[in-house]
């Protein structure tokens, strides 16, 4: 995809521009823009649409001759997935794990986000550095020791174990996100609170926290989506197939001997629709939360 076409025309070259040619040129540019955007949109849309389409084909090899699906479209895959597979079990475990992670992450990180946004204390820089470094942890770093520790504690194949593992990433992450949000709340509010005799805890709990609800929400969304999409730990630490999260459950449709692609596609669609809807609902906050965290190092 070419990026240079954008910087082409649309500009005043002559002091008194004549309307005719400029208009034509502008239309030309916008046609090119539309062309590129349409192609890009098709590329973005196609794999998802294709999955949706294949999920309607009744046979597991329908992906080889997709034309045939038009004639025999059916929702059988969906009813099969919902009734005959462990879909509902997976839904339950996914919800337990994600909601648990989200709650713990937000609750624990909230005061820290406030502290690092408002206060400078000895060790501040080191602490921020630690928060940053924990976000760079490759899965491979903690997986082996976590596996050993959790097996000793008999927490392998338990929801609690997985929630604890996810907290290693979401807690520091939420602290970062919330610091960014607290930074946008004027300091005058804190000062007013203190003048009126509130302790810093009181200021935080009574004044800042109610104002920071959107920030808490962003942190919650992010933890939710992170925990939902995590593959590596879930695939390794959950052993019984009723405790799989969706990320693991979906893999079970393709084994070395058999690939039930039609069922997998149907499951994928069922999983994707609510999550994507949720994502669209919150996406604007996510991006600002990520990048507006803000230049204050």
């Amino acid at each position, binding site marked *: 995809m070419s990026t240079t076409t954008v910087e082409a025309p649309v500009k005043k070259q002559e002091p008194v521009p004549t309307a005719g040619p400029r208009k034509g040129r502008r239309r030309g540019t916008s046609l090119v823009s539309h062309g590129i955007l349409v192609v890009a949109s098709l590329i973005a849309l196609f794999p*998802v649409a294709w999955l949706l389409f294949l999920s309607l084909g009744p046979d597991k090899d329908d992906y080889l001759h997709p034309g045939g699906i038009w004639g025999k479209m059916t929702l059988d895959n969906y009813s099969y997935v919902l009734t005959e597979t462990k879909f509902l079990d997976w839904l339950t475990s996914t919800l337990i794990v994600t909601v648990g992670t989200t709650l713990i992450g937000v609750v624990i990180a909230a*005061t820290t986000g406030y502290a690092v946004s408002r206060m400078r204390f000895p060790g501040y820089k080191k602490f921020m550095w630690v928060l940053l470094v924990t976000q760079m942890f490759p899965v*491979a770093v903690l997986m082996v020791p976590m596996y050993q520790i959790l097996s000793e504690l008999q927490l392998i194949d338990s929801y609690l174990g997985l929630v604890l593992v996810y*907290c290693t990433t979401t807690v520091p992450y939420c602290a970062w996100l919330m610091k960014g949000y607290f930074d946008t709340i004027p300091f005058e509010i804190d000062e007013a609170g203190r003048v009126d005799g509130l302790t810093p805890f009181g200021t935080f709990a009574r004044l800042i926290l109610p104002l920071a609800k959107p920030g808490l929400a962003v942190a919650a969304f992010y933890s939710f*989506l992170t925990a939902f*999409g995590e593959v590596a730990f879930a695939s390794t630490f959950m052993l019984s197939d009723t405790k799989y999260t969706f990320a693991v459950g979906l893999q079970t449709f393709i084994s070395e001997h058999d690939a039930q692609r039609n069922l997998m596609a149907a499951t994928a669609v069922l999983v994707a629709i609510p999550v*994507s809807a949720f994502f669209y609902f919150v996406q604007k906050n996510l991006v600002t939360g990520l*990048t507006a*965290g803000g230049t204050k190092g």
Partner: protein
Amino acid sequence: MTVAIDRATGKTRGERGPRRGLGQRLKHGYQKHWYAYAMIAPVVIVLGVLVVYPLVYGFYLTLTDANSLNSARTIGVNEIEATYKFIGFDNYADILWGETAYDRFWSHFIWTVVWTAACVTLHYTIGLGLALLLNQKLRGRTLYRLILILPWAVPTFVTVFGWRIMLADGGVVNSVLETLHLPTPLWLEDTFWQRFAAVMVNTWCGVPFMMLSLLGGLQSIDSSLYEAAEMDGASKWQQFRYVTLPGLRSVSSTVVLLGIIWTFNQFAIIFLLFGKTAPDADILVTWAYRLGFGQQPRDFAQSAAYGMLLLAILIVFTSFYRRWLNRNDQQLAI
């Protein structure tokens, strides 16, 4: 009681008195900052228990020859004690310059670097291009935007399976290529094409984040700057070069760093796209996973050692990156 709120200006407030003794300073620091410490305590405790302890334990494991045969385990009712022993830095030495080190570490290392560079470059250029397009006044801008972030909205583990079906032998991608009389590579079997497919799928997944972040950056550039540039007779290219790019610097340096870290650690795409079939397309993260959990016996010690090496690479890289930014008078947004 004083509270240490100082707006992070970096300036010290007022003249300091003569330096006090260490004990007094500690006491003073404690009185002044105990709020802050109390507030960060929950995260410190959680990180200590969930990150630092496993990290230290993991490091200890890398100094042993632990694998699934000699670790403590329970078989039925019998508990078997761990029998692995301390072997010092042999694991690291073996990984870095052991006998088949090239095949086991360096080839994957090179591929990881290529993978990261290729993916981040593609993410950034395509994301920037699309962000510039969306930053114009265009009909249907919102609709384009909503469609273009679809790859980010749908969970990765779902879309990767979509791609896996599309790229499979006889799948739609090859059917289309065949109708166009183009070669139809074995995307999921041939090493080169596996790598190509991995980069392609990761690019597809990663562009929306870059696009949205950069779009946010573009929209925060003051439009009077463009007017001024236009008044001075700057061409479109010059405006892009001297207004847009500098205006995006802070956002760019942040998202590029995030992109590099995420891509370097990208596990799900390669793991789900190929399963266990493609050892040659493994980047270091998936390779470490394969050693620790994807084979029998599970080689815990080596896998953990790979993890430590990866973390070290990332920390060194990030430190240099930050230093380089500081030298250019830039701050990271994170």
